């Protein structure tokens, strides 16, 4: 079926086409060296700016793809911002939240009307609240990594996705995200530092498959609301 026959035949055919046999040890070592120490290629200069400017660029880029962005000062302001956003959208104050310990540091109890369940998203959930590993000013993109603290279904099943993002997690270019994953992996290499799923999310779900008319909420969230938290964020 998928036995080694196909593998050897394909590798053999590749090598015939390249006019050589398997690479020798020296050549392999040189290629592996590059894999072991991945380096950024050209990185656009647009994010070569101050942190304040990065936050501003992140915000305008995210808004240009129909995300909404709110900036609040201090962890204490987060529950109110989330509750007010839901009320403003005429959404029920009931949500499923990532079991992310970082989110525990916001005083959700200050808003007792918010009904919060922690865990993965299910069919009936209308609002999901998560953190994000990073934001990239380059295109207003969020990076989210799956794990016990962040089930990926939260990013896709609920029709409204609210992301709480401490301002200092906003970086410049995507490459900073790969560097962070490697650093978080504490020396693990190859697949070792990669979570099962890394989502780069730029705005809410959309399609233009019917007459090139951009329509939001194709399969994933209709709304993506980003709360940027300044100051004493956890």
């Amino acid at each position, binding site marked *: 079926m998928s036995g080694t026959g196909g593998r050897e035949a394909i590798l053999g055919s590749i090598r015939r086409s390249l006019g050589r046999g398997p690479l020798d040890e020296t050549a392999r070592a040189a290629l592996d060296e590059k894999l072991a120490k991945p380096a950024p290629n050209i990185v656009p200069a647009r994010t070569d700016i101050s942190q304040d400017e990065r936050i501003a660029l992140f915000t305008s880029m995210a808004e240009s793809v129909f995300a909404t962005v709110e900036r609040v000062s201090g962890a204490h302001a987060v529950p109110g911002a989330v509750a007010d956003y839901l009320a403003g959208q005429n959404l029920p104050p009931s949500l499923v939240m990532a079991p992310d310990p970082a989110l525990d540091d916001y005083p959700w109890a200050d808003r007792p009307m918010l009904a919060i369940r922690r*865990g993965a998203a299910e069919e009936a959930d209308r609002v999901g609240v998560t953190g994000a590993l990073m934001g990239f000013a380059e295109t207003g993109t969020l990076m989210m990594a799956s794990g016990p603290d962040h089930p990926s279904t939260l990013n896709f099943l609920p029709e409204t996705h609210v992301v709480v993002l401490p301002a200092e997690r906003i970086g410049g270019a995507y490459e900073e995200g790969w560097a962070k994953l490697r650093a978080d992996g504490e020396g693990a290499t190859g697949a070792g530092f990669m979570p099962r799923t890394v989502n780069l999310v730029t705005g809410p779900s959309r399609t233009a498959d019917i*007459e090139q008319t951009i329509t939001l909420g194709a*399969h994933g969230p209709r709304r993506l609301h980003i709360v940027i938290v300044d100051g004493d964020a956890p």
Partner: protein
Amino acid sequence: METTSRAFVANAREGLQDADLQRSLARFQGGFQVKRVEAAKRLPEFEALRDQARAIKDHTLAHLDHYLERFEEQVTAAGGSVHWCQTPADARRVILSLCQDAGARTVTKSKSMIAEEMELNPFLEEHGIEPVETDLGEYVVQLADERPSHIIAPAVHKTKDQVADLFHEKHTPLGRTRRLDRVEELVEEAREVLRPRYLAADAGITGANFLIAETGSSAVVTNEGNADLTQILPRVHIVIATLEKVVPTLEDATTIMRVLARSATGQEFSTYTTVSTGPRRPGDADGPDAYHVVLLDNGRSRMLGSEFRDVLRCIKCGACMNHCPVYGTVGGHAYGWVYPGPVGAVLTPNLIGLEEARHLPNASSFCGRCEEVCPMRIPLPGLMRKLREQEFARRLSPAAVRNGIGAWAWLVRRPALYRLATGVGMRVLGILGRRRGRFTRLPLAGGWTAARDLPAPEGATFHALWRKGRRA
């Protein structure tokens, strides 16, 4: 996939006479072209990134065996498996057995051109497994029992009204009996109809925009999020990809991503870029239990050693078809196989044979726009010309064409005779056409005059005018 590439000329004529298709085509190209130019303008590094993207793929292709082996090692380390398949039939069998092992009754699918190459949907259906396309355009095409006509906008040939009729017909049995007329309503209905299918699917099949050797990951790009619901909800995630999708590192994939969406739709970045590595981890609350990569060759390893290697850099962005005047006139179905447009004109003869697809490399005015906009700088007109040369050398074109080209070649290699013959010809035509200024019929030019008049020459050849110094 069944091919009708042999019938390109008839297919094209049909496309020209299809008023709905012409309306759809007229709308779509302009929008994509303007958005691409604007996106490129906003990124000063765009041209340098194209150069680097090309260099990354060239390097990878020159060491393809090594990077595929490294990719497989890392997939295995992450708890997944790689299945090497030489032919579409091999790949179909592997996918079927993975689905059967999972006890699958329905599988969701996010758009993949490779699945079209292997005619996966009819094969799964024959074996009692229902494939459900989830990309909106692909869903429309599946409901209509058609084939995609564009690689990133599969239903670009359909008008909103055609989609409305189709949904009305196919969704009525589901209790959705109202005919909808707004695009938002159609998108909403597709969302509501497909949501339970995602939740019920036993396996999810996605394509891949990149395979990453460094980490054994696959990366897939969508705007709808359909590839994500397809891969995180079912028990099994099956990735299907051809060999040349591999790149060395996450950084290399990132560089190519920067030119992908900008070239395709003019977006700064697609909405969802998802990098998947192995099955779910201990402690994860969701994600698939199993992760398989079905690696399909289907002629790519052979092309690697041919003069068409450059086309293996293709990242399937669709820019060449968004800018091709021939595609924009006849539509994607005319090309008769999986890949339409300029890249299809090079890939198709290589994958299914020049005998089947000899018309496609001729379906070009060689205006050069495809090469100009290709983010991977694939010299598409040059590759089409090589195919035309092969067609001539292998005597695949009709005798009349070959003799005509032979006579032409004989003449142009004799400059004095050429100047004499064309000079006389132009003078005669100039005299004959002086009164009306155009010909409605002319011997040997029936192909031209069938659809339009031929302007009458003014009596002198370009060569003659040039020599006289009239170089305006």
